[in-house]
């Protein structure tokens, strides 16, 4: 291993993370052109946004404890009923903050 100063290691880490992330973004876009646009594959791609976001949330929400569950449920309900992302998000944060304030 080459010895890096902490400063160099910091920049190298950021550089690697940035390169990886950008490569994933661009290759997704460029490779998609070679993939079929109809049938099962299209259904798969159409379903992905929702299922990925859901997979991102669910374990984190479960780990947030009872107050977190309540907050998540009400955030989701609010979003479903009003369609307002900001208000829904605020509902969740206020519930969690209130819960912590009262030591729940």
């Amino acid at each position, binding site marked *: 291993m080459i010895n890096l100063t902490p400063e160099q*290691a910091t920049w190298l*880490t950021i550089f690697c993370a940035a390169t990886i*992330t*950008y490569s994933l973004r*661009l290759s997704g876009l460029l490779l998609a052109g070679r993939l079929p646009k109809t049938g099962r594959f299209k259904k798969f*791609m159409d379903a992905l946004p*929702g299922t990925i*976001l859901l997979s*991102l949330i669910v374990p984190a929400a479960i780990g947030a404890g009872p107050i977190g569950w309540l907050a998540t449920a009400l955030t989701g309900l609010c979003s479903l009923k009003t369609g307002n992302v900001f208000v829904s998000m605020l509902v*969740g944060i206020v519930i969690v903050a209130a819960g912590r304030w009262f030591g729940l």
Partner: protein
Amino acid sequence: MNNNPTLPREHLHHLRIGFTANLVVAASVGAYGSVLGLLAAQKGLTWFQLLIMNLSVFAGSAQFVMVDMWFPPLPIMEITLAVLIINMRYLLIGASLNPLFEGKALYQKILFIHLVADENWAITMARFHKTTTSIWFLLGGGICVQAAWCSGTILGHRLGAVISNPEQFGLDFSFVAVFTALVFSFWKGRQDLLPWLVAATVAIVSESLLPGKWYIVCGGISGALVAAFQPVKPEGRTDD
């Protein structure tokens, strides 16, 4: 239809409405960005290093994990691998944007794709099937989210000493809250029930079985596979 080259004026208009459409979400991006800033300050990152990380990586959850793993000597390989896993979804996000970039020049793809985050992508895709949208709308959103992300994180970094316990204000929960609020814009009806149930279940199970953030990719792909293979009309063909 598209006989005339699109006027720059129209691009500017789309850039503006894209920016505006993302303002609301950007507020929450700024909020959880401030939490990242607080954490980064504690780990000894300078505000300038954080700013460069924001501009070049521009991926919220990955940056949270990076800062979380930020102990000297820096585990560069591990951090890079973690970023690869968490951001694997950008491969799919990039692919899902293909129809939007249909017929666009390669240099536009190369430039515009960098400013694609979960938030402006979600808002653009939610609009995609309902009304007109464009890569300029996407970019406007990207600029908005990027601006909020940078302001929020830098503010958090600078105020690191003032707010010593962001958890008390529920700021750490804003990540879950914003994505929960966003996910329902993708709910198209009953046909989504089974794929979503499968995605959630697989995410929970794989989160406890697998290291890192593989559960995001596992859950997302299994749910979407169910959507692809669940019978809508009677079909006999199973070949690909």
